[in-house]
């Protein structure tokens, strides 16, 4: 068996298992099972990104799909459960006789969309490279060697600025729902305590490493930020009382550091160069590193704050 046949079988197996997981996750009525299937789906997606030659996306999917999404959804599920039944209440209340199990109109339109997409993908000429040659030709002027980082932080820096603001607005949306619910802290086992103490420095180190290596290898600000966010979630789950800190000024400065750094740099380049976010090629590398550092801190703090699930307590409120 030659290698391309083997890798094709691998990919087909992967794709089919993804489909199976997705179908089961949607078809089941037990919410716990659906959440777990979704987590497994995220883990397999990271493998798919690896096979599709997109290691930067795989890094982000590993950090977010393996850790943060799982923790977020399980935590949300715990709050949904009534304390008496202890089981997730499925909200499937339609009459099974009147409601067919397949909705025909959405199904037909989805099949049409799928056919259209498949047709356009299969009629791509194999020599079609998209924007790759343009990116690679300008890579030396961008200040970094990783084309993904160059596109995210330099060529399309404006999009990344907007993404930072979107993340911030998402946090504001969660905050608008109300105050931090007080979670009754269950007993923290010494094993969990020690684990959090041992793992958190490693988290921070790996995040810094991914941030640094993003200049010339897969990595970057979003991936490092998600790792920091996962570290924050681990600390919160292990009973560290971070709630008091979330109302402090330092915390809010960290939240805004990323978007503000982008906006400040955009303003400066607009004033000096006349073009939004046009870096002088000599300093481009340094500027990208500074931007990425602030972005990492912001993303990490934002993700951990999202896990808290509410507006930070004011300082005067007594801790329950």
């Amino acid at each position, binding site marked *: 068996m*030659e*290698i391309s046949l*083997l*890798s094709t*079988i*691998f990919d087909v*197996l*992967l794709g089919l*298992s993804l489909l199976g*997981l997705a179908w*089961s996750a949607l078809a*089941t009525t*037990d919410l*716990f*099972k659906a959440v*777990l*299937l979704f*987590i*497994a789906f995220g*883990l*397999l997606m*990271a*493998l798919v990104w*690896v*096979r599709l030659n997109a*290691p930067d996306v795989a*890094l982000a999917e*590993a*950090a977010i799909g*393996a*850790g*943060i999404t*799982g*923790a977020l959804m*399980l*935590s949300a*599920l*715990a709050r949904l*459960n009534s304390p008496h039944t*202890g*089981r997730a209440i499925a909200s499937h209340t339609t009459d099974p006789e009147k409601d067919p199990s397949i909705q025909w109109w959405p199904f037909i339109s989805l099949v049409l969309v799928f056919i259209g997409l498949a047709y356009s993908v299969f009629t791509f000429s194999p020599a079609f490279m998209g924007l790759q040659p343009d990116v690679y030709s300008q890579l030396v002027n961008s200040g970094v060697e990783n084309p993904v980082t160059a596109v995210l932080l330099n060529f399309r820096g404006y999009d990344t600025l907007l993404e930072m603001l979107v993340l911030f607005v998402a946090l504001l949306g969660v905050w608008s729902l109300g105050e931090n619910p007080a*979670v009754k802290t*269950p007993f923290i086992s010494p094993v*969990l305590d020690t*684990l959090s103490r041992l*793992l958190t420095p*490693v*988290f921070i180190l*790996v995040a810094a490493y*991914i941030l640094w*290596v993003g200049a010339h290898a*897969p*990595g970057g600000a979003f*991936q490092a930020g998600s*790792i920091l966010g*996962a570290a924050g*979630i*681990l600390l919160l*789950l*292990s009973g560290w009382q971070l709630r008091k800190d979330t109302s402090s000024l330092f915390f809010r400065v960290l939240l805004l550091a990323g978007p503000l750094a982008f906006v400040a740099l955009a303003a400066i380049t607009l004033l000096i160069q006349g073009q939004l976010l046009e870096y002088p090629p000599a300093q481009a590398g340094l500027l990208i590193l500074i931007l990425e550092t602030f972005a990492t801190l912001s993303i990490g703090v934002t993700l951990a704050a999202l896990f808290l699930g509410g507006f930070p307590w004011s300082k005067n409120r007594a801790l329950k």
Partner: protein
Amino acid sequence: MQMFYFAVAMFLLLTLIAGMWRIMRGPSTADRILAAQLFSTTSVAIILLLAQASDNSALQDIALVFALLAAVTAIAFVQRAWPAEEADNDNH
């Protein structure tokens, strides 16, 4: 050698798919979490084998992130989401 790595990676993927059965069945929620842990550990091995097969050492960073985050989901379950009484849910 490259083919050998791919073959073992595919074998591990098959064991992974077999483990999916436990997520579907597992009478209690804790069994499903165990299956998620299986997914994590086996994915680390698959990614390392793929990294060696395609001679792309950057993929080892992905395995590192997987290994790092393996515990977070399970800890979220144990600390927050595990119901105090396990109802006997054999109906799936």
